[in-house]
């Protein structure tokens, strides 16, 4: 069987890619995609731990289900807010959304 650590390293790499996307990308949609990658890393962790801990205890599974249900809700609200921003300002670039500062 593939050792648990492989999954964890994979998840960590995915998390890092997502975090990089959040911090480095300028497009708000791309930032939201970065967040999704981070949440996917979380799900890989949860399911991998579930498989290698006690398989009869479905806590990890339940947690993963909750995570992507909430992620869907968050993205739905996020895209709605982005649309309302785009209608006002005709942009989805994070660095052009700078009305509020200092």
């Amino acid at each position, binding site marked *: 069987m593939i050792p648990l650590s492989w999954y964890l390293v994979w998840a960590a790499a995915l998390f890092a890619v*997502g975090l990089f996307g959040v911090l480095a990308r300028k497009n708000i949609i791309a930032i939201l995609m970065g967040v999704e990658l981070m949440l996917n890393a979380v799900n890989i962790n949860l399911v991998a731990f579930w498989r290698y801990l006690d398989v009869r205890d479905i806590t990890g599974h339940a947690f993963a289900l909750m995570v992507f249900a909430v992620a869907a809700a968050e993205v739905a609200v996020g895209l709605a807010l982005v649309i309302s921003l785009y209608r006002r300002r005709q942009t989805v670039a994070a660095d052009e959304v700078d009305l509020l500062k200092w």
Partner: protein
Amino acid sequence: MGANYLAILPEISLAVLAALLILIDLRLKPERKHILPGLTAGGLLLVLVATLLFARPAAGAGESIWGGMLRHDLAAYIFRIIFLFGAAATAILTQGWKTVERRGEFYVLLVLSTLGMTLMAASADLIMLFLAIETASIPLYVMAGFMTSDDKSTEAGVKYLLFGAATSAVMLYGFSLLYGFAGTTDLYELSAAAAAGDLPVLGLAGVLVLALAGFGFKVAVVPFHFWAPDVYEGAPTPVTAFLSTASKAAGFAVILRFLLAAYPLEVANWGGLVAVMAVVSMTVGNAAALAQKNIKRLLAYSSIAHAGYILMGIAAGTVLGATGVVYYLAVYLVTNMAAFAVVIIFFNVVGSDDIASYAGLSRRHQGLAFAMLVAFLSLAGVPPLGGFFAKILVFAAAVEANLVWLAIAGVLNAILGLYYYLMVLKVIYLDRSEDESKPLPVRRSHMAVLVVCLVLVLVLGTVLGPLYDWSTIAAGGLF
């Protein structure tokens, strides 16, 4: 562990209230929609009374209910009362806010967010905690961006969402590792597993840092504070008031339970980190507030500084510290709500949030100016107001925990804070303007909120006994 319906009475009744509001909003004729804020506030106050009467837990360590998902104890109870009061005051303060007051969905979101907060205060399981945090946050993103025809509000909504989504993903990554280390998501079983001594200390420390990102965002402490000034300025002011009081209290409720009651690491391992965050928060918040021209931004930086003061109580990691946190949050709720009530009343008439436009307020409306005086002096920590005793408690906790340097930093910061609060009061009382003779009408309902908050500020500063005893018992139950 069993089904205890009375213990979740507030949550059940909030869910019912939200459903009722949707239905009422559907049936209500457009010209009658102005009753929505009052209806929401009335409903929330009913829930508050029901909670006070029926949902009170026995003093002591509390018990896990609903399969270990929730904890039924006095800390959760006090925080629920804080949230319900904050939400009711917020609902009343939206009266007269044109883009909001006739929109039923806004009030549904407000009630659902409050529901999320009450669950945050009681969660005893990582899954429940995550769900509760998101239930509280997602409606708040929408509420912050609610004025879709306003550039600043839409920007505030998007910024709040981006910061919130990113930090909650980081926190969740920490939760997933914690589940892997301990094999359980039950917070109270976690600490039992740690007592057995088979958890990696380094891993736990890493998880703690990740989790603190999510919690730090909720309470707006440095370095997770960047969203606060922008969102506070852009969001509709009643939402800002809700964010800075109830939402912050919810974040601290989680931190209290997670760090002090459940986390399987001793205070010695993380106290230093939290203490540093506290000092940096206070200093950054107070220093940045000095330069602000907009009253909402000033209050935002002041709220970052206050998050720092409250964090001192957590850093102490003692019963006195936790008592201070609970007491501080109750006082902060009524004080900040009073300050924001004045800002809202003033904006409704004058249409400006600039500090300069407050010139001559004392001649224009004596009562409002006095309300601002009391609220700001309480925020600054001047006796005999509530803010003074709250600060004493957290400073004392720091000293008791041998963190004298932390207490000294706190006192120095309190002096720095006093300066910018007094600067605003100087504008209100000493500066003159041409508008001094113009009337400044105040709604009765707004005045009622203001008076209740101010009376509570005074009461919490002079009649210390009841809330202090409650907080002590609640704090004792956490350990």
